[in-house]
């Protein structure tokens, strides 16, 4: 990875966020597991069908969509695809101001909040849910769809081997409102400029990012390599039902702003989102507060 002509880091693995769903729960709800929701409207309709009472006691015990609502770094990875697909963004392109005052942003924010408040297709307790708790909901068949990536099937499989995650789960591109979009996760290898052992460090980085090891990472942990001569040619990756969908989404992927204020901006955003989710504020009011506060952070 280069910046101003200088090499700063070696790419490691990449991940794109996609929609994971439980095919057995799709069938039980009368949905075709080979036709995952393509648009956000379809997604909402599917989520409504998947939110139901399975044991006949009159109470909903299965929900359509599980997602992160806690102030966790995992939140933005799962919310970003929706926001971007609606045609909105967190910040202006120069990253100097908040862009959350657009009609598209308002629409995306309200859509996400109403999944919980109005349509009730997300299980209760959303504001306390971290990524691992959401994966547990998928593993325990409490939800039928979640946003996830390469790490999702192995972790879900570990939580509940009885689910048979590698068989029963399937994935599809994130649902689309106006344009295909998703969040990208990139990891990279960086060497400290003050290291006493640059040669050894370089040997290690070369080894870790070598073809064989990058492929082994995929086979062992489902981590997809950034190397084209691995992810683009290895049959293990090309024929994998999850990795192939994730690779297809790379052209639509976006990386979150790499600025120092980002954690604070995201925390501010999540705080406002939570206030809308629990009904303390209307979505419009919560979002406009987030907009003002983010502008104040960036103006500091």
């Amino acid at each position, binding site marked *: 990875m280069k910046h101003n002509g200088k090499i700063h880091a070696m790419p490691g693995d990449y991940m794109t966020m996609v929609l994971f769903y439980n095919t057995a729960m799709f069938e039980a709800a009368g949905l075709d597991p080979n036709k995952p929701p393509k648009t956000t409207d379809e997604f909402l309709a599917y989520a409504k069908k998947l939110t139901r009472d399975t044991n006949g006691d009159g*109470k909903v015990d299965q929900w359509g969509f599980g997602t992160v609502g*806690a*102030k*966790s770094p995992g939140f933005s990875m799962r919310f970003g695809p929706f926001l971007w697909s609606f045609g909105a963004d967190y910040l202006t392109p120069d990253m100097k101001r908040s862009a959350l005052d657009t009609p598209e942003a308002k629409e995306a924010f309200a859509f996400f909040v109403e999944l919980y408040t109005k349509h009730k297709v997300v*299980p*209760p*307790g*959303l*504001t*306390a849910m971290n990524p691992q708790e959401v994966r547990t*909901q998928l593993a*325990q068949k*409490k939800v039928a769809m979640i946003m996830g990536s390469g790490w999702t099937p192995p972790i879900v499989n570990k939580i509940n081997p009885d689910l048979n995650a590698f068989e029963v789960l399937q994935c599809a591109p994130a649902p689309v409102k106006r344009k295909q979009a998703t969040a990208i996760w990139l990891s990279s290898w960086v060497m400290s400029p003050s290291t006493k052992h640059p040669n050894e460090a370089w040997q290690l980085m070369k080894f870790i990012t070598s073809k064989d090891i990058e492929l082994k990472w995929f086979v062992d942990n489902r981590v997809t390599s950034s190397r084209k001569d691995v992810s683009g040619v290895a049959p293990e990756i090309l024929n994998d039902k999850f990795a192939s969908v994730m690779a297809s989404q790379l052209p639509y992927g976006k990386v979150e702003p790499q600025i*120092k*204020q980002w*954690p*604070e901006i995201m*925390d501010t955003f*999540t*705080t*406002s989102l*939570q*206030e809308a*989710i*629990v*009904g*303390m504020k209307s979505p419009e009011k919560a979002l406009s507060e987030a907009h003002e506060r983010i502008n104040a952070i960036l103006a500091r």
Partner: protein
Amino acid sequence: MWIKDRHMWMVFVLPGVILLILVLGWPAITSILYSFETEQAGDAAYTLANYKSLLKDPFFSTTFWNTTVFVFFSVALHMILGLAVAMVLNSALPAKPMFRVIALLPWVVPDVVAGIIWKWMYDPIYGALNDLLIKIGLLENPIEWLSNPKLAMTSAILVNLWRGFPFVMLILLAGLQSIPRHLYEAAAIDGAPKLQQFIHITLPGLKKMIVVALALDIVWEVRRFGLIQAMTQGGPGVLTEVLSTYTYKQYFKFFRFEYASAISVVMTIVLLLVSLPYIWMISQEE
């Protein structure tokens, strides 16, 4: 020997003093200096900018108020439950050691672990607490203990009550055991009812222990971090954000070292003020 015997104490005290300076003195002074710096100017100029922003920060005032509520109710409930359990354990109870160990157990659990356990118990889908309340017929539908804006802080305080009362109980139990039995016997002979005995013998006998427990508990509950961080991370919104989680966020997540230092300096000043009675009492004894 080149050190005279009467100076030998210095050698023994020295490691402790050095350690204290390193782990307490140095970080404290650095934090205070940091709190007067700004990110832009560094230590080139010392200003009150951070403290001015604190006064204008709506999250800080909310957080301060939340902390007050959290600490007040935690400590008050610790005192009530701690004293009640201590009196039970001080009475003629069969298998006393066993009950003492049981009463101490919540205190042995680190607060992060307590937070994680209770987060699971509070879970609206799998949580044991909702399940129990529904089974015994007290609830119709599960409650969102940590997500309901009206309940979140109460739920956090309840966990903290469970986690923290054994410490108060332990101190007050020691106090109760030091009250001479014959005072109660004499009062009983004079026909004083139990309530009178409690007001005129037990409470005065416990006065010092109560001050100790109050001071230590207030200081600890203001600093309480892992419990809330593990359960709500300050949410929903900022309803359970307390000074400790707010400082942590500013420092470790937002990298605003100077601002976080200012918050912790304010926190320290408040804590010093509330622990003055305790410090005064200790200095009286010498």
